[in-house]
């Protein structure tokens, strides 16, 4: 992890209220693994006070992309960044998805809403490792759908405006024949309710599964102790989301 001032390359709207910010950091671009995140100080001064964590969405050359929904103080500031502005970035942080292990042949990517964030970088890794990829993403409607840089994508929308009228989990179940006999491993990111359903499905079908969690955190690397995740069957009660996550094997935690 390093802390550095990075130049904003551009901010681009990719869907309704959803933006991709690209910044330049040769170090972060070269060492970040899928599932890791960066913690960004969006403004000088004290409003907003704390850094904001973002999954790395994609890297290309010296560029790093993050994706965000404009929902609050931090994201409102970020969307207004101009090409050439400087942002203070801490990263890469956290434990990546275990995409480099050989305990699977098919990477099953599941993303709900902005949970698609770590999927492009995951896809790139899986493709480079010559793994099969099946991708299932869901959003509220066609207007919030982001499917850039994904492969073999199945889409669901809550309102039925594109793809299946339903959720990413409905897709995952519906298309299980596509992956279930090809040594699958699920990598999921999205709202807690979705992760809960994905974990239940994975455990019921004996499919290995990792999820990437999201939650409030301050420092992003362990000094504030602010982001506990409840462990199952461990000596201690909590792990820290920022340092021991944000990716976890679903069998280790209570979602």
């Amino acid at each position, binding site marked *: 992890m390093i802390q550095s001032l990075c130049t904003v390359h551009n901010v681009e709207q990719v869907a309704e209220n959803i933006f991709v910010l690209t910044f330049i950091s040769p170090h972060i671009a070269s060492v970040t693994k899928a599932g890791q995140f960066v913690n960004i100080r969006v403004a000088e001064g004290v409003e907003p006070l704390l850094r904001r964590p973002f999954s790395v969405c994609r890297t290309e050359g010296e560029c790093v992309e993050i994706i965000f929904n404009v929902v609050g103080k931090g994201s409102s500031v970020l969307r207004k960044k101009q090409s050439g502005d400087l942002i203070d970035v801490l990263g890469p942080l956290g434990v990546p998805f275990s995409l480099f292990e050989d305990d699977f042949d098919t990477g099953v990517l599941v993303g709900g809403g902005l949970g698609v964030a770590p999927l492009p970088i995951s896809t790139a890794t899986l493709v480079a490792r010559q793994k099969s990829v099946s991708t299932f993403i869901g959003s509220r409607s066609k207007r919030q759908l982001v499917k850039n840089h994904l492969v073999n994508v199945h889409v669901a929308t809550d309102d039925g405006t594109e793809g299946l009228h339903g959720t990413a989990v409905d897709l995952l179940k519906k298309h299980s024949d596509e992956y279930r006999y090809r040594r699958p491993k699920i990598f999921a990111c999205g709202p807690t309710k979705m992760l809960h359903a994905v974990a239940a499905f994975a455990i019921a079908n004996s499919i290995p599964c990792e999820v990437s969690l999201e939650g*409030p955190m301050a420092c992003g690397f362990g*000094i*504030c102790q602010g982001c506990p995740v409840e462990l199952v069957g461990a000596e201690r009660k*909590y792990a820290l989301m920022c340092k021991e996550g944000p990716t976890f094997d679903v069998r280790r935690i209570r979602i």
Partner: protein
Amino acid sequence: MYEGYESDMITTSVTLAGVQFKNRVLVASGTYGYGDDTIELVDVSKLGGIITKSLSMKPRDGNPPPRIVETAGGMLNSIGLANIGVHRFLTEKLPFLRTLDTAIIANIAASSIDEYCNVLDALEAEKGINGYEINVSCPNVKEGGLSFGTNPTMVEEITRRLRSRTKKLLSIKLTPNVTHISEFARAAESAGADALSVINTLIGMGVNIHTRKPMLSTVTGGLSGPAIKPVALAKVYEASKAVKIPVIGIGGIMNANDAIEFLMVGASAVQVGTANYIDPGAGIKIAEGIRVFCEAHNLSDVGDLVGSLDAKTEFSAISSWL
């Protein structure tokens, strides 16, 4: 930016109760772990000192999530003293801390007077710890914590018991959640404390109006960050007037100017807390900023700032207002 200045022209170091600090800026307990999380980012040996996360006899899991929430110019936390316990600290963390060229102060939290004593005894047996800060002011635990810190007799008793067990620096960390902090300052001083750490967090809360739920799992928590600086300054001012022992000022320090305010109202040193979450190098930058300020004002010792507040003569226009 500050290159070209002779660093040896200005005295930045200070000795408090026999402990030499290379500068007057320390990092506050609970905001720097055990000193080993930031080594990739900053040269922690440049800090005046590191105060460890509170240590209890046994490991503590801490409180359920959500433990933190941002507020206007601040943050609420309810960590609940999550820590690895004193024995794991001694075997897993202290060897690293010993390698640092900075003062190491162990912060102790407990739910009984005996526990305070036992943790101190365990630390006292080891080399590498320069002193102790006693947390009698955590707002986020059921036992101990604030129930000790809001009772002056208890503060006196805890201080006396610990004083009899160590000759090392002993600082009592006071809560601002009392009517007269001076009463507590005097209680700790009379029982033999070497210093006071002022202040711990203020009790606060926040509500999510859409779910009608509190923002923290424990409903209330501790408020920190720049929002509390004016309160902290007033408490440091009050405490330092009430006692002869040094007061270490804490509360919302984000930059050198903030720290200088604390020194001027009477703090002999300061601790940087919440700012570390945003910039792990904040303490080092603040120490350097204080030195540069002294240089610009022809002061030969940072100590010249301590208690230099001029509250008597006519007030001047506040040029920074606009």
